[in-house]
């Protein structure tokens, strides 16, 4: 793993309303496993599917892209929330992928986690926006990649890590 790109998403991050504490934490996690990696944080991008799409397309030579935020139902489930677009873009872009969807018992999509590869065989994954979930997902992702796990196992481990951040864990439907 030589080049890792962190892509924070969200209008609230772009505007500085919320500070991006996820990227520094994820950078640390990457460097723990891959000390020689070049890790770059992109300037945050808005919750705009076209922008997210173009950003991913423009960085296909990176070994791993981690998109931060935009993984839930967002505004579609709750008008007060941001429009979560990242998972939808990844779904359309990734050629080979695995996904897990975590719902609340109220039926809202809390997190849709995708991991996969683009044409050039590089890894792309998303992590949720809330800090504890982003860190848990990022750590599980990096550990799994470092262990050369396959896509299905990586996906499973990332979802389990996020699920474990809820107070009582979760149960498989």
């Amino acid at each position, binding site marked *: 793993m030589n080049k890792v790109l962190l892509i924070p998403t969200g209008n609230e991050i772009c505007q500085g*309303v*919320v500070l991006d*504490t996820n990227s520094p934490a994820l950078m640390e996690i990457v460097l723990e496993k891959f000390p020689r990696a070049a890790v770059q944080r992109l300037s945050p991008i808005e919750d705009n599917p076209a922008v997210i799409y173009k950003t991913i397309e423009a960085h296909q030579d990176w070994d791993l892209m981690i998109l931060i935020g935009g993984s839930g139902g967002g505004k579609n489930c709750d008008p*007060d929330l941001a429009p979560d677009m990242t998972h939808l873009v990844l779904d359309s872009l990734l050629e080979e992928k695995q996904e897990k969807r975590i*719902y609340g018992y109220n039926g809202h999509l809390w997190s849709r986690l995708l991991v996969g590869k683009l044409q050039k065989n590089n890894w792309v994954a998303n992590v949720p926006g809330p800090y504890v979930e982003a860190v848990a997902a990022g750590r599980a992702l990096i550990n799994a990649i470092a262990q050369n796990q396959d896509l299905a196992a990586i996906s499973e481990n990332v979802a389990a890590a996020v699920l474990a951040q809820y107070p009582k864990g979760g149960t498989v439907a």
Partner: protein
Amino acid sequence: MEDKIVAYVDKTIVKITGIQIQGIKPIELEKAVAAKIGCPVRVIGVTSTSLKMDVYGLDPESILRDEQGLLQTISLIPGLTASDVTQIATAEKAKEISAEELAKRTRTCCPKENWVGL
């Protein structure tokens, strides 16, 4: 593990309005509020004038009972400024839907998520 997972976590969704936010670290707010009310908290939405959070394992009534204490706690968070009009606008318990209803949902769950504009 199935691809579709339901997290059976009891939560109350709390919205606070009448605040000004710029440069907040949600994890700091989560820690402060959790210490105040004794329950885990997750910030799920932030705008420049409001915030929304999930409070796990505490009923809306219990949250509203000490509204002033909660508002005082969040007013101490760097990046957040409270005012005379700061209030808990809503505190609602998440309502459970049946597994059958959830199973009928499309892959992307929420009806408006049929986004295909690429």
